[in-house]
């Protein structure tokens, strides 16, 4: 059976090509209609062209619509020609052979607008059943961009021979869209509209909105024969609606205060306007009074007062009417759009939650190192942000030497840990060790280190931002629908934050080091008498916290730009994350990062134009939050909570 079908198809293809060998000969049979086409006569040509099924027809039709077809005045044959001064570059429509000739003796075909539209329709028809799937897709794309009632039958016709599943689905979707907008039968249209009520794509929403397109109209009384969408309350903006009346020649023009001033200035007589001395004209009322005098004398158009405006507006109805006359269809579309918008709302909420989650993981990454140095050891390290920066610059330097971004990332992560671990240990040995009993002074000393490190980075790398390019497989975004999408880098940062959480919990709860860290935190003297060396443990803990900051720096650098000030941008937020979450608890930091991340996104959503305001309100919220829960979300209880 299948073989039979194949051979039949082959035979048919052979037959058509044998029947009409080239385009030129088909065109020559209709030479008159091609050279001087009109909308009525061109149909015959199109029918024959479509029937021929020649692949070069598409190119010919495109050039024809673009007015690039030329006819030889003597032989009458047609060419694709590009004009270049007096010369003409001709391309044979069948063989594609190029020749250059003088433009004399050739005349250009100039199809009018109506004919071009017929050509366009035929072109779509051709492209829709073109054997090349790329061309079919691009035709569908252009239909999607500029939908037209005439495309509907073409699409339905082309659906039959479609064998590519994806393209077929797209065609069916477009047929649905077009039916909703242009279908002839009301029931069909309503069915199509109802089927859109679950589609949150931008395209489907655009279709519904186009059906619901309205126009503002002005009338003396509400019409019965119009599909009225809404009656507008003109009280909201007098001036704008009155201006519309003026535009429609239904009311005299308003006289603005500027016009009043100009009119007064033009009509000064002996230091007075309308009998009022100039010096008294320093208020709006006095000016209007003078203007009314001028108007009474007939020199200027009459003043339209605010009362006049209200009275005139009261005489008219402003209403918006649907372009679509059938109320049943607009009602269905309205209902469908409402249901779509509810769905879009939920999707946006989900999208916002994902954004909040990824912001929370960034804050968590920035703060987790601090949760160790500040949370476990109680050391205020203002240079923590500079460790983040140091990690990011390590990543940047590695990328300078290792061009492959994946490999360089794999090198940069442990290297950043090593570099900042070393820096942290050095800082602990040289500075912090001497200040354990003076916590406020640790703050100031580490701040000194922070500004020194920042300036050194600026001296080495300059002030402009350095890129930390992410590998190919991390670019792009995971698109779930038109509303919900999340970039792969954010997913990677989330995963990294999770890994950090697990590793840290493992180290603190399941290893000898963690046990000793907790022991030294709770009671250094007792820990020392049990044979733990508190000095060594403090050094290791501080190194660990700093090292994690370095790794966080690499991942933050992938997402944001690397500058010498990047750490300073995170330091206050990081401290807040730890304080809000509850000092001394890793889960607290997690909770703090979650709260701050989601809160910031939530406030941004309420006031999307302004991220600065969002940060301001978030900090205010945190200040208030600490009033009511001074120990943070996860407060330690019992003796561990003692200062």
């Amino acid at each position, binding site marked *: 059976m299948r073989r039979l079908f194949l051979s039949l198809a082959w035979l048919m293809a052979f037959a058509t090509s044998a029947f009409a060998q080239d385009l030129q000969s088909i065109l020559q049979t209709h030479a008159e209609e091609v050279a001087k086409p009109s909308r009525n006569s061109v149909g015959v040509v199109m029918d024959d062209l479509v029937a021929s099924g020649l692949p070069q027809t598409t190119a010919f039709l495109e050039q024809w619509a673009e007015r690039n077809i030329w006819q030889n005045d003597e032989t009458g044959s047609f060419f694709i020609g590009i004009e270049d001064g007096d010369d003409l570059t001709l391309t044979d429509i069948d063989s594609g052979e190029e020749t250059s000739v003088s433009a004399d003796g050739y005349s250009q075909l100039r199809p009018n607008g109506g004919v071009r539209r017929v050509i366009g329709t035929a072109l779509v028809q051709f492209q829709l059943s073109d054997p090349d799937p790329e061309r079919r897709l691009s035709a569908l794309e252009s239909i999607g961009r500029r939908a037209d009632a005439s495309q509907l039958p073409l699409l339905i016709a082309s659906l039959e021979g479609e064998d590519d599943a994806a393209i077929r689905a797209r065609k069916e979707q477009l047929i649905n869209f077009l039916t909703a907008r242009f279908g002839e039968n009301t029931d069909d249209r309503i069915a199509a509209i109802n089927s859109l009520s679950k589609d949150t794509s931008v395209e489907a929403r655009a279709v519904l909105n186009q059906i619901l397109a309205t126009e503002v109209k002005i009338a003396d009384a509400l019409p019965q024969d119009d599909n009225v969408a809404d009656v507008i309350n003109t009280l909201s903006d007098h001036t704008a609606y009155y201006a519309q009346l003026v535009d429609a020649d239904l009311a005299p023009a308003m006289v603005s205060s500027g016009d009043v*001033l100009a009119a*007064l*200035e033009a009509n*000064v007589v002996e230091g007075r*306007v309308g009998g009022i001395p*100039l*010096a008294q*004209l*320093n*208020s*709006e009322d006095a*000016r209007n009074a003078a203007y009314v005098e001028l108007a009474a004398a007939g020199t200027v158009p009459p003043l339209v007062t605010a009362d006049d405006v209200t009275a005139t507006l009261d005489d008219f109805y402003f209403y918006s009417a649907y372009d679509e006359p059938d109320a049943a269809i607009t009602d269905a579309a309205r209902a469908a759009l409402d249901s779509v918008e509810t769905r879009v709302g939920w999707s946006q909420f989900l999208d916002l939650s994902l954004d909040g989650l990824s912001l929370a993981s960034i804050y968590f990454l920035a703060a987790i190192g601090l949760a160790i140095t500040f949370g476990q050891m109680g050391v*205020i390290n*203002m240079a923590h942000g500079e460790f983040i920066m140091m990690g990011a610059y390590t990543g940047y330097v590695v990328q300078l030497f290792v061009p492959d971004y994946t490999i360089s990332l794999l090198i940069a992560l442990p290297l950043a840990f090593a570099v900042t671990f070393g820096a942290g240990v050095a800082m602990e040995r040289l*500075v912090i060790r*001497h*200040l354990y009993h*003076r*916590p*406020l*002074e640790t*703050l*100031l*000393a580490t*701040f*000194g*280190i*922070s*500004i*020194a*490190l*920042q*300036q*050194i980075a*600026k*001296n080495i790398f300059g002030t402009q931002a350095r890129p930390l390019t992410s590998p190919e497989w991390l670019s792009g975004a995971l698109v779930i629908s038109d509303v919900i999408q999340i970039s792969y880098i954010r997913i990677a940062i989330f995963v990294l934050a999770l890994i950090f959480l697990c590793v840290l919990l493992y180290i603190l709860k399941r290893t000898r080091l963690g046990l000793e860290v907790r022991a030294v935190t709770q009671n250094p003297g007792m820990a020392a008498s049990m044979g733990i060396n508190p000095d060594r443990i403090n050094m290791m803990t501080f190194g660990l916290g700093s090292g994690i900051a370095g790794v966080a720096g690499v991942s933050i650098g992938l997402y944001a730009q690397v500058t010498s000030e990047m750490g*300073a941008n995170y330091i*206050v937020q990081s*401290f*807040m994350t730890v*304080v809000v979450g509850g000092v001394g608890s890793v889960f607290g930091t997690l909770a703090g990062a979650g709260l701050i991340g989601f809160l910031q996104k939530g406030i941004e959503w309420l006031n999307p134009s*302004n991220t*600065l*305001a969002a*940060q*301001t309100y978030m*900090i*205010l919220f*945190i*200040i*208030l939050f*600490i*009033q*009511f829960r*001074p120990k943070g979300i996860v407060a330690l209880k019992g003796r561990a909570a003692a*200062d």
Partner: protein
Amino acid sequence: MKNTFIARNPSVLWFLAALGLFTALVTIASEATGAGLISTSFVKTLGKTLCLCLIAIAMDVVWGYCGILSLGHFAFFGIGGYSIGMWLMYARTEIIVTESLAGRTIPATPQEVSDAIGNQIFGVVGSSEFPLIWAFADSFWMQMAFVILIPGLLALVFGWLAFRSRVTGVYLSILTQAMTLALALYLFQNDSGLRGNNGLSGLQNLPGMDDVSQATVSLAFFLASAAALALGYLLFAWITDSKLGNIIQAIRDDEARVRFLGYHVESYKLFVFTITAIIAGIAGALYYPQAGIINPAEIAPIASIYLAVWVAIGGRGRLYGAVLGAAFVSLLSSWFTGGGAPNINLGFYTVQWVDWWLVLLGLSFVLVTLYAPKGIGGLFDKLVRKS
């Protein structure tokens, strides 16, 4: 009473005498008096430095005496500057606008004048409406009152919230830092009503005093700053010497014990926090007309940390230490960053102080914290004890 206070604190007299001598010398040497030994711009720098000294002694009282490391006092300084800046900018723009409208045949209505002023001031942030907070900008006395009231009220509310829930130590430092960050971020917005990151500018031109030369104006501000510093110094010396001052220092040393002795610790802390905020506001109101411009970057958290740095380098717990620290570090800083210090050529690399000054400052700060916790003031102690 006054005699005994001075007798107990000879350093106050010494300080006032030194300040008086310094002021007199600068006045004689300034361009305004004809000697011209000190340029007008340097008089301004000295005047600004005196304002910084004033906020530094406020910081010293709150940190060195009461033990509250506030990292937000520059916010109050900035608010003081903004309050006076609003009047300066409004009044000057009003004069300019009135002059430009005076040439018209028909006199301008009050609405037109106000619209034109709004356009001049807020055109840069794409607006022309006066925000609510400018309601009293035309009144010098109201804005002067705001210099005191707004920092005072803000400190009162913030301090009450913080001390009430017993936020202490580093937590309080972080909280105050968050406060100043929030304020700076808010002011950075264009619709904050204070011209966003453009800030307020042209503050050095006093309204209605275009005929008076900048030399005279800057000397006047210098003298006013010196007077404010002297009065502030007297006030704080008196407070810290009184019984109240003893309790404040006791709170610094052992807060719990003072509380158990029956004192209401929160009220004392709140008083210190608020009064120093007010003095900071006044210092700001004197500083910014000399600086000429104020923008939100001025009150970024780093500024308040520098303030703590000055006090620490000068020596905490002594008022003259704070003055020394602020004057020494800020003048040194402008000498280094202004290109005054000679660059050091190491052969393979030239150390340019514009680039390396902050590194030097940061590291020297670490060294002071580690090895000289009493700062420059500590040196004086040693000298006094030896003699």
